[in-house]
């Protein structure tokens, strides 16, 4: 009979959690990105967390893990109008400049200026300190077209 031991290993800075499953004579590891409950997600890997009329926007743990070490975040100006599905900024990592798309429409009311000097916060805390912009929503109905955490997790499993 196979022996199994479960443990969970937090890989701090990468924001990944791995379950280590040990079988007799073999070890298998399945690593998966964190998907925060209570957030809404776009298939393009951005998230929105709504509080009243304002949504905080960032990129998911899956995205930051795939991008690699973030070295630069190009932030929009406060007051800029953003549209659902259109690019609002750029994240640079591993020689790649990747467009970031707004999951919702509205007006940028705040940007995370911490990311100017500490862009790696996007990697270490993608759902909390690594948020990118806050948007005053112009159409709350758009939220219904975003994925909930379970649906987004299934989307990530396809990759």
């Amino acid at each position: 009979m196979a022996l199994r031991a479960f443990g969970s290993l937090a890989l701090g800075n990468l924001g990944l959690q791995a379950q280590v499953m040990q079988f007799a004579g073999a070890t298998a590891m399945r690593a998966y990105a964190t998907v925060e409950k209570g957030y809404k997600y776009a298939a393009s890997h951005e998230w929105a967390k709504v509080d009243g009329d304002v949504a905080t926007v960032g990129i998911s743990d899956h995205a930051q893990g795939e991008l690699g070490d973030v070295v630069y975040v190009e932030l929009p100006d406060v007051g800029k109008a953003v549209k659902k599905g259109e690019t609002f900024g750029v994240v640079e990592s591993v020689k790649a400049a990747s467009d970031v798309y707004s999951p919702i429409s509205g007006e940028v009311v705040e940007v995370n200026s911490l990311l100017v000097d500490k862009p790696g916060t996007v990697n270490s805390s993608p759902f909390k300190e690594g948020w990118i912009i806050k948007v005053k929503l112009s159409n709350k109905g758009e939220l219904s077209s975003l994925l909930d955490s379970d649906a987004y997790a299934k989307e990530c499993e396809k990759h």
Partner: protein
Amino acid sequence: MAVGAARPVLNLLRLSRLPIYTQLNLEEALLRATKDNWLIVNDGAFSPSIVIGISGRPAELVHCKSALESGVPALRRFTGGGTVVVDADTVFATLIMEGSALPDVECFPQPIMKWTEQLYRPAFAAAGCKDFGLRENDYIVAGGRKVGGNAQAITGKRWLHHTSFLWDYDPARMALLRHPPKAPKYREGRGHDDFVTRLCEVLHPEHGRRRLVENFGIAAAEMGFAVQERTLADAAPALSHRPLLLGTKPLDLREFLQ
């Protein structure tokens, strides 16, 4: 690519001595304003230029005073990555892809780089270099010597990956660049001349460059693309697309003198 599936079209644009500023604007326009796949090969830039990545700080990356005195202009490009100095002895290869053309390649930096290695390796082999490969995020030959700079731009399910291969370089121009703040692990503290190599010292000095330039398109066809030759007249209309915000800009190094 799936066996039996229709071969995706790859538009091959062969150029020579196109100015790097024009090349970069054309690349970004084709990335943002079309849904087509492109392989652009520019055999040499029209004139020397320093090219800095999207977030690069000129004062940290370039000896600005020396660059101004030398007359080599600088510009900022729209892709990530480091700083290069290009000239007529730089061979440029740019891939612009719709993600659906390569369904097994995720639109993230590492999968894209691994795929480009599969295309460039046979092109280098046909040109006479059988040990071309990817090491960390660089293309290398001869067991660990870098042969060019590369960078990417990813927008949704479309991506662009461009490389400046060093057929040869002028040491005096290369000296205009400062040592980058971060070095890859495989550099292992080596000085510039031991870390970077010229392709003219690796490939046949007379035929190697021509064979390399020719074989980029051949390698793409052998990977399953339907390669179609295009001209600048076919590509240029992308520049007229509106709105089109292009991220490549000339830099005035006087603003960064310390």
